[in-house]
C-alpha cells in the first residue's frame, strides 16, 4: 500500500470516526484495530495492540497529570481559592478596570498552583463575573480577561497538558514546564497593560466601582493570610524539582500534598470535599488516559505503514526552510485548535511533527513552547474553544456565546504578539530551563 493510501486509511478513517462523535479514545482504537490487521500482521498485531495499551498508560511520566489536576480541584472545592481571589481584590485599588486587573493577577497566582485551565476559568468566572456585570462592566471587558488568563494557565507550571505534550513528544517535561513560565508571565503583563489602557481611554467599559478603599494592615492582611501561604505550593513544586530532591513527576505529588496541608491549615478540607475533588480529578484524568491508550499504537502504525516517513520525505522534498516548516506547523495547529480538543491535536500532529523537528535539528523546548501557545489559542477560538464554553456555562443566561467569543478576541491578538516574540527570539523561552539546569 502506498503511503498516500495508508495515510488516507489511517488519518481519513480516524477523522471520519471523530466526525461521527465517537469518543476520541474509541475512534483511535478502532483505527488501531484496522491498522493492526492491515500493517501489523493481523492476529499478532492485535495482540501487540493489547500489550501496547498497557504500556502506553503505565508510564511514570504521566503521573503528574492526575496530581496537577488534583491541586486545582482541591483548591476549588475547599473554597481556599475563592478567599485568595478576594484577597487579591482588596490589594489592587484605584486602577482603571480594577476587577479585570484583579482577574488577571488572581488568575496568574492561581495558574501557579493549579494545573487545570478549566478550574481557573470556572473559578474566576463564578466569583468575579457576576460582580463585574453588577457594577456595570461591559460584558466583553468582564469576560475577556477571565477567559484569557484561563488559557495562560496552560503555560505557567504546573500544567497537566504540558506534561502530556512532553510525554507524548519525548521532550523533557521539567524543561518544558519551566520554559512556559516566561511567555505565560509576559502574557499576563501585556493583558494588564491592555486593560489599563482600554479602561483609561473609555471609562464606560469598566465604571469605577463602589469599592471602599482599605488602608494599612487591613489591606494586606488577607493577602498575607490567604495568598502568601499558597505560594508555598508553587515553591514546593518548582523548588523540589530544581533542588534535586524530587523528579518533576514526584514534585507533582509533593505539590498535591502541600495543597492538602495548606487547605487543612485553613481548616477547609473535609473528607467529603477531598472525595469530591479526587472524583473530579479521576474523571478528567481517566478521559485523558483513555485517549492515550490509543495514542502509542496509532503513532506506531503510522510509522509501520510508511505514512510517517512518506510525509516526511515529501515535506523535505519541498526544500522549505526550517522557519517555513515551523510556521506551517503552527498554522496547522491554529486551524485544528478551532475544531478539536488539545489532546486530539497532539495525537494527530505529533507523529508527523516530531520526526521533522528532529530531522531539522530544531530545539525541542522552543518548539514545545510554540506548540503549547498554539494549543492555548485553541482554547479561546470559536467555534469550539473549550474555555469559551466554560465561560458560557458560568455566565448569566442573557450573555450569548457570540459575546463570549468576541470578548476573547483582543487577547488572542495580544497572545499572537507573544507567539511571534517566542518565534523570533528562542532564548526567551530556552534560557530559563538552561539556567536552572546548570
Amino acid at each position: 500500500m502506498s503511503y498516500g493510501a495508508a495515510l488516507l486509511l489511517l488519518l481519513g478513517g480516524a477523522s471520519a470516526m471523530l466526525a461521527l462523535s465517537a469518543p476520541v479514545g474509541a475512534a483511535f482504537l478502532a483505527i488501531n484495530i484496522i491498522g493492526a490487521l492491515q500493517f501489523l500482521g493481523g492476529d499478532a498485531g492485535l495482540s501487540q495492540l493489547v500489550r501496547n495499551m498497557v504500556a502506553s498508560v503505565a508510564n511514570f511520566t504521566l503521573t503528574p497529570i492526575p496530581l496537577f489536576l488534583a491541586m486545582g480541584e482541591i483548591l476549588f472545592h475547599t473554597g481556599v481559592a475563592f478567599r485568595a481571589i478576594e484577597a487579591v481584590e482588596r490589594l489592587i485599588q484605584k486602577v482603571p478596570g480594577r476587577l479585570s486587573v484583579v482577574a488577571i493577577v488572581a488568575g496568574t497566582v492561581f495558574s501557579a498552583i493549579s494545573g487545570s485551565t478549566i478550574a481557573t476559568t470556572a473559578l474566576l468566572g463564578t466569583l468575579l463575573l457576576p460582580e463585574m456585570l453588577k457594577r456595570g462592566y461591559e460584558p466583553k471587558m468582564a469576560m475577556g480577561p477571565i477567559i484569557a488568563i484561563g488559557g495562560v494557565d496552560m503555560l505557567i507550571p504546573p500544567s497537566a497538558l504540558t506534561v502530556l505534550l512532553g510525554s507524548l513528544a519525548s521532550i523533557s517535561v521539567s524543561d518544558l514546564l519551566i520554559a512556559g513560565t516566561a511567555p505565560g508571565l509576559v502574557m499576563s503583563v501585556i493583558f494588564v497593560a491592555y486593560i489599563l489602557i482600554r479602561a483609561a481611554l473609555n471609562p464606560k467599559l469598566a465604571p469605577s466601582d463602589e469599592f471602599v478603599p482599605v488602608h494599612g494592615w487591613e489591606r494586606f492582611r488577607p493577602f498575607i493570610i490567604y495568598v502568601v501561604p499558597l505560594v508555598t505550593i508553587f515553591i514546593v513544586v518548582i523548588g523540589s524539582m530544581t533542588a534535586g530532591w524530587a523528579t518533576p513527576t514526584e514534585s507533582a505529588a509533593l505539590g498535591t500534598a502541600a495543597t492538602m496541608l495548606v487547605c487543612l491549615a485553613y481548616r477547609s478540607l473535609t473528607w467529603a470535599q477531598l472525595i469530591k475533588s479526587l472524583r473530579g480529578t479521576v474523571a478528567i484524568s481517566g478521559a485523558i488516559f483513555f485517549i492515550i491508550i490509543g495514542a502509542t499504537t496509532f503513532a506506531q502504525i503510522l510509522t509501520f505503514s510508511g505514512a510517517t516517513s512518506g510525509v516526511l520525505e515529501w515535506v523535505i522534498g519541498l526544500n522549505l526552510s526550517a522557519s517555513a516548516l515551523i510556521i506551517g506547523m503552527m498554522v496547522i495547529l491554529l486551524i485544528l485548535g478551532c475544531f478539536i480538543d488539545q489532546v486530539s491535536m497532539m495525537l494527530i500532529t505529533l507523529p508527523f511533527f516530531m520526526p521533522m523537528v528532529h530531522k531539522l535539528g530544531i530545539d525541542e523546548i522552543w518548539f514545545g513552547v510554540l506548540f503549547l501557545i498554539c494549543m492555548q489559542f485553541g482554547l479561546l477560538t470559536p467555534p469550539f474553544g473549550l474555555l469559551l464554553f466554560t465561560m458560557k456555562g458560568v455566565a448569566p443566561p442573557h450573555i450569548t456565546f457570540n459575546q463570549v467569543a468576541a470578548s476573547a478576541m483582543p487577547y488572542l491578538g495580544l497572545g499572537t504578539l507573544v507567539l511571534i516574540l517566542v518565534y523570533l527570539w528562542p532564548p526567551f523561552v530556552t534560557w530559563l530551563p538552561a539556567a536552572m539546569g546548570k
Partner: protein
Amino acid sequence: MKAIQRAFQRLYDVFALIGVAVVGLMLAVICADVVLRNLTNIGIEQSSEIAEYCLYVIALMTAPWLLSQSQHIRIDALVAAVPYPVAWVMEFIADLIGLGVCSTLVWYGAKVTLASQAGHSLVIKSMIFPEWWLFAPLPLAMFLTAVEFLFRAIRLITGERRAGATTANIA
C-alpha cells in the same frame, strides 16, 4: 432492562471510587518515597512502578463510568450541527463502533492474558509478579465499556438519550 442498567451503573460507581482510592495511594507512595529517600537515603524502590500501575488502573476503572456519564472526550461539532435524524444515525453508528472496538479488545485481551498465564511469563522490574495479572483487568474493563456502549445505543433507540447532547472536554 432498567434494573440491569442500574446494577451496572452501581458497579461503574464502585469502579470510580476505586479510581479515587488509587489516586490517594499513588500520592501517598510517591510522597513517602521522596521523604524517606531524602531523609534516610532509603526510599521505596517500587514507588515509580506502583504509580505506573495506578495510572493504568485509573484508565481502566474509569472508562465505563465516564462513558455512562457522557464524560469521554469526543468531537461533537458535526453532530450538533446536522438535523436531528442525521445526528441520531451518527451517534448510533458511533455507539456501534465503540461496541465493536471494545468487544474486539475483550477477545484479544483475554487471549493475551491466557497466553501469558500459559507461558508463565513474569514482569521483572522492581517488583516481580506474573504478567497475566497486568493484562487481566483489561478484558474486564473493555467488557463493561462494551456493555455501556450497548446501553447507550439502546437508550438512543428508546428515546431516553438525545443525540447531539454536549459532552465533557478537557484541558
